[in-house]
């Protein structure tokens, strides 16, 4: 079993392919715990990190994953590049291809940009977030974090809370979790829920209190501050009062809820600091898992065998 040429989203993947990535990530976790955090799995491979949108954590996470696999990497940000001179995505892609690269990691503001690129170049393409479509490695690292804590995904109830409408993280989590047999709830103001979202197979939870009663874990999305200008919400203050994940609200939960957040957080808006820093928060373990997931994806797309991942990862 392989992943195919590109990773553009979790929707096109099978449950087996998703499990393969999660399982392959396990031995790579250990690499990052060593004093010398490097294995030779991708030695000689050239990878371009093509970031058309600002990103700190995802870009650095990919870069660490690439370097720890010994790949040669180049970072291209849109500002100051040919993109800012009006070059089209297809021309950028062809020029990269002409330099005989092996893989492209792309973050882009337009939904479908990763697929577009993948259909036009022979190199492997990894989607690091395309518009409002998908952010597959984020979905995978969230699932790895859930699996670490619960030892399973199947049967878990995961509520994704916040701006579902504009969230690529939400879409990747929905597809991935549903494929592995979890129940998925979405919770947010109706103005931030996409049309027909229930037809994806998720439960719509109208109030944050409903989500807290229902779920085993909350994945709290970042509220983009520009949504106020878009007329989707009246104010951050009201959002926190009505939809904020606070310790008062969590105290009424029938059980301890695991708290995830893809970052960067707006403390005091979608999540209160005492929750984010509290005992049930796995926000930092998510970041740690992000590197392992990205190492697994890079390794598998480069043709690495899952059977050799332990050796590649150097685990005993």
């Amino acid at each position, binding site marked *: 079993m392989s992943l195919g040429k590109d990773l553009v989203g979790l929707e096109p993947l099978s449950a087996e392919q998703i499990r393969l990535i999660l399982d392959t990530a396990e031995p790579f976790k250990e690499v990052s715990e060593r004093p010398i955090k490097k294995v030779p799995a991708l030695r000689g491979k050239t990878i371009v990190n093509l970031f058309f949108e600002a990103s700190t954590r995802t870009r650095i996470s990919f870069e660490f994953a690439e370097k720890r696999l010994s790949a040669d990497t180049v970072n291209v940000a849109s500002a100051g590049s040919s993109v800012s001179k009006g070059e089209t995505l297809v021309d950028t892609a062809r020029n990269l291809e002409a330099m005989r690269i092996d893989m492209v990691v792309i973050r*882009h503001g*337009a*939904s*479908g940009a990763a*697929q577009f690129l993948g259909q036009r170049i022979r190199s492997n393409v990894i989607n690091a977030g395309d*518009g*409002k479509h998908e952010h597959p490695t984020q979905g995978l690292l969230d699932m790895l974090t859930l699996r670490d804590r619960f030892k399973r995904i199947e049967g878990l109830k995961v509520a994704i809370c916040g701006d579902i409408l504009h969230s690529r993280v939400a879409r990747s989590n929905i597809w991935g979790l549903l494929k592995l047999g979890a129940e998925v709830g979405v919770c947010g103001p109706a103005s931030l829920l*996409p*049309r*027909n979202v229930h037809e994806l197979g998720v439960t719509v939870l109208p109030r944050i209190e409903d989500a807290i009663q229902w779920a085993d874990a909350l994945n709290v999305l970042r509220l983009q501050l520009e949504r106020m200008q878009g007329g989707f919400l009246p104010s951050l203050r009201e959002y926190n009062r009505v939809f904020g994940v606070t310790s008062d609200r969590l105290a009424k939960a029938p059980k301890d809820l695991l708290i995830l957040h893809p970052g960067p957080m707006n403390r005091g808006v979608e999540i209160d600091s005492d929750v984010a820093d509290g005992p049930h928060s796995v926000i930092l373990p998510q970041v740690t898992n992000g590197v392992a997931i990205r190492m697994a994806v890079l390794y598998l797309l480069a043709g690495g065998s899952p059977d050799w991942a332990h050796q590649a990862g150097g685990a005993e």
Partner: protein
Amino acid sequence: MTMRPIFIRGGRVIDPSRGTDATGDLLLRNGKIEAQGPGLGRPDDAEIIEAAGRVVAPGLIDLHVHLREPGQEDVETVATGAMAAAAGGFSAVCAMPNTDPVTDNQAAVGFIVSQAQRAGKARVYPIGAISLGQQGQQLAEFGELVGAGAVAVSDDGKPVVSSHLMRTALEYARTFGIPVADHCEDPTLAAGGAMHEGLVSTRLGLKGVPAAAEEIMVARDIVLAELTGGHVHLCHMSTRGSVELIRRAKDKGLRVTAEACPHHFTLTHEAAEGYNTNAKMNPPLREPEDREAIRQGLRDGTIDVICTDHAPHHYDAKEREFDDAPNGIIGLETALGLGLTELVHGGLLDLPTLVARMSTMPAKIFRLPGGTLAPGSAGDVVIIDPDVPWTVDPMAFYSKSRNTPFGGRHLRGRADVTIVRGQVVFRRAG
């Protein structure tokens, strides 16, 4: 100029304007229809076209095309558009005014008229702008536009946002007996939208345009038609709600007419899967229920005409991210084939009704020559092979552009010969 008469022998002659559907002959002379009936005498000097097994009908008329001249001659010109029209069976097309500069004055209208005359293919009737520069502020000079040859006014490509401007346009147009054609779209609901708002837009993460964006403006225009007594023509209808609103308006006897495009009676929003930019147009492809409502509207006459909204774009304009690709597809060379395949062979319409939707009704609504085979009328005729199977090959189009979602599609039926002013302007080889 003298020209040979044309004698079309033994075809199935369909003329919805007179309720004709019978085997017979048709004689054209001096640019006009001279006679029609069974067993006509053949003038010795006439060119004979054998039409046995084929349909002889008034030339098709498309009320809604974008020919891009002046301004974007790299993607289409009046001449190439008129040739593509002829190859699609159209003897006349109406060119929307969203050119660069905008067709909002008599000189601009006259330019299109003269380019069409030089091309000498399908007739091209300019549509003038409603507002200067299509800015939605100040009315264009309808009187001078009509004097120069405009057959209607429209700000197509953009909605008429101001209800006051739409009202005065409908009132003022009455003086000249022309319809006001409106692109119905509430700009605040449609802002930033790239496709229909529904399950597919949710999955693809694209901003959707709800059906309500169209229906709100359709409802407003109907109310204004009632207020003013003016003739509103509703462009490229795409939703079930619009069809219902128009049906009610017609029941009330209001002067409301409507058009729909082949892509809206053939495809749904699923066609945008994979971020296919050739399935991106405005209004967008909608849901199966909407497509069915458009089909039923065409059957019962709620939708009066089929138009193409022929919208050429350069291939690299469509070769980009879905959000950034322009709206629109070309349609002149596939419209008849899709109408025959989807509607006639699909069992929804009979052939005379398809001819009515593509010729007789468009002529009537915009008060154009043609749409009839009555003796003395314009010598505009199409000869259709209604059954021939063919495969859409965009590289074989006469249009300068190739942006169609129908490439590779198998269709049944197309135009073989198009005659304009008594002269053959297109004859399919082989």
